[in-house]
């Protein structure tokens, strides 16, 4: 039993924390928030790529660092803490994971080195508008080497070089995955406004757009689901990092803000609120750590671990972000103060990959499946 990261991982974390504290400061995040023409911080993205983060889990033969899922979790937590305004989750947790999982050799050769170097940005486009973004909701059609339809919202869809999209093939219900060059003909995209402008989103229309198959025909949704499971764990670390940042911010404020002649942090209503955030965050962290281990060892209960980490982390971050504003009083409700940056991000992350309700349902389905096969 070793419930902890390794020495090297602690070093990685310190390095990441220091780097991001500097390069992804609130001013950097705010610059993306306040400038409508800025989708992400390009300098930060380039520097992250230079540090090798974009290629963390890509094998060395494809230009990556060949590190483990756990290492990526360490980085993810710090990205979440610092609200890094980059397409990291789309390109690394989703596009890269999908290519590693389902790409053929040519595709890996073509895309992975460019993804590792941060030269190409990938995204995964699933949702087609209002409603649960599940397999049944996909209307996009695939023809002979082309796709037609609209995806919205697509995280980082406005800046990505390519998208991975599930689309219907033939006449049946089969879904298959395709890679589409977003700079190619037949693709038009426009940015869509979201609750968190520090992470850009787009609506992408495909009209006879050239598409190359990824993975076996008909496997589309099962690949998406497996990619989502893995991404859920990585994103849980971002969420835990964000929740921790809120807890620290609120605790700090509570110690220094005085009312009625004493620190507001001496009022139990505030103390107990912060204790509850701490508890939720630690439970989420514990579930995320287990997820990290499952990710790295490809454990049989990976989907259970992923759903548990996802649910716990979404709840913790939303709670922490919301009560952080409350703890700050009027100050917390201002544009000037940073509380809302976390509040926005918390909600955004808990909707990306599908909302809490859906993941709770999935958690129970996975537990039922485990139970009926008699596995422990």
């Amino acid at each position, binding site marked *: 039993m070793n419930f902890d990261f390794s020495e090297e991982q602690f070093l990685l974390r310190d390095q990441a924390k220091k780097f991001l504290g500097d390069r992804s400061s609130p001013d950097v995040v705010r610059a993306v928030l306040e400038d409508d023409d800025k989708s992400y911080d390009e300098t930060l993205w380039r520097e992250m790529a230079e540090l090798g983060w974009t290629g963390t889990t890509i094998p060395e033969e494809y230009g990556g660092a060949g590190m483990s899922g756990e290492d990526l979790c360490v980085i993810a937590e710090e990205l979440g803490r610092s609200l890094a305004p980059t397409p990291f989750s789309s390109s690394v947790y989703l596009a890269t994971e999908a290519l590693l999982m389902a790409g053929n050799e040519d595709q890996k050769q073509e895309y992975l080195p460019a993804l590792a170097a941060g030269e190409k940005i990938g995204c995964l486009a699933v949702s087609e508008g209002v409603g649960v973004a599940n397999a049944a909701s996909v209307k996009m059609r695939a023809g002979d080497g082309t796709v037609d339809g609209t995806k919205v919202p697509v995280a980082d869809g406005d800046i990505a070089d390519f998208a991975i999209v599930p689309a219907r093939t033939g006449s049946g219900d089969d879904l298959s995955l395709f890679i589409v060059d977003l700079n190619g003909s037949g693709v038009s995209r426009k940015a869509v406004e979201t609750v968190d402008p520090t992470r850009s989103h787009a609506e992408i229309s495909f009209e006879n757009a050239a598409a190359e198959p990824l993975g076996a025909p008909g496997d589309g949704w099962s690949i998406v689901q497996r990619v989502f499971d893995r991404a859920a764990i990585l994103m849980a670390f971002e969420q835990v990092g964000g929740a921790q940042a809120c807890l620290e911010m609120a605790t700090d404020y509570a110690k220094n803000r005085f009312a009625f002649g004493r620190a507001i942090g001496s009022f139990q209503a505030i103390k107990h609120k912060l204790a509850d955030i701490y508890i939720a965050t630690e439970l989420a962290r514990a579930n995320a750590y287990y997820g*990290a281990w499952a990710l790295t060892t490809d454990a049989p209960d990976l989907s259970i671990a992923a759903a548990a980490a996802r649910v716990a982390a979404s709840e913790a971050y939303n709670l922490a972000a919301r009560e952080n504003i409350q703890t700050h009083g009027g100050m917390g409700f201002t544009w000037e103060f940073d509380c809302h940056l976390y509040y926005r991000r918390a909600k955004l992350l808990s909707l990306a990959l599908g909302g809490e309700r859906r993941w709770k349902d999935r958690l129970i389905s996975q537990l039922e499946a485990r139970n009926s096969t008699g596995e422990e």
Partner: protein
Amino acid sequence: MDFNDTAEEAEFRAEARDWLAENAERKTPGKVYKYKRGEPELIPAARAWEGEKFAGGFSGIALPKEYGGRGGTRLQQIIFGEEELNYLIPPPIFSISHGMAVPTMLTYATEEQKQRYVPATLKGDQIWCQLFSEPAGGSDLAGLRTRSVRDGDDWIINGQKIWTSGAHYADMAILVTRSDPDAPKHKGLTYFFLDMTSPGIEIRPIKQVSGYANFNEVFMTDLRIPDSQRLGDVGQGWQVAITTLMNERVSSGIRPAPDFEDIFQLARDTELEDGPAIADAAVREKLADWYIKAQGVKLLRARLMTALSRGERPGPENSISKLVSSFRRQEIAHFGMDLMDMSGAMMDPDKVPSRALYQQALLDSPGGRIAAGSDEILRNIISERVLGLPPDIRVDKELPFNQLPSGSE
């Protein structure tokens, strides 16, 4: 990171499992131990179970062999605790004895006293109770009033304790008293241990919400305790009590019943209007929340094990587990009964699922949120000791104890 046992841990776990498989009946969903709290047969059965564990080398696992322990590690103790919970064993009659009295004795008693009391406790021959809380306050332990006055080689004790679990069957007790009412409240306390058959002790059971009487009022009238049974210095009782309570927090293996697995099973067995309860979205949401909490607490125990294996001292973070688990137990009890609809009101073990586990937990679970640090006190501990928030404004720290306001009683 590694959530599997190390080779050594696995070896010990296998040994524990083998021994348990031979000596106890494995738990299956819905099945409960043959005697409930409050049934007279329970106490001898619990003593016998401790005796068996002692003989098998699984009592006092982390304690030195010279005092009857196994000479193993805290980690092994936690592993055994985890495994033991998969079997039908008596409810924890010995948790105060093992979790509080023994560590306190080992820290403060004389060598001769350790030899005399510790092995006897591990064998199941001696059960201890904890004479701490008083009518004037449980959370505010340092507000206690039971007086101790020195008389030659003895101390004379007068006062009243309350909520003392198991006083009616305990052989021995740990006791905190006020030896100096002129000193500030934390500075005038003195700590003892005593034989519960000493003259001057009167025990009156208090009936609990659940109907049976596991805790008691204990009246002490001119009770004599030899000075040799004082633990720690005169006036140092608060420090000794802290030792006792810190060990309480670490004593592992709290697993509330019913817990996630029970309600998960119940949801699969229960038919609602449109099919099994497990298919109902509202039920699934609740189940998911309880799963992440139960799993989170289990994983935090893994964190505790890691800390112990590195020789670190468990910190106040571990207050989370009891706080989260006792609350979850109450919620699950309520929800399980709700799934049973009108029939959920029945307490008859032959008529409702799991032999009325949920109904019993309904009536028993409020106590878990009060005993051993209430929800509110644990949140204070987390916010002050973990997050570093300022303590409450205190009006009682510097004044002499006998000048403190006390409210009406």
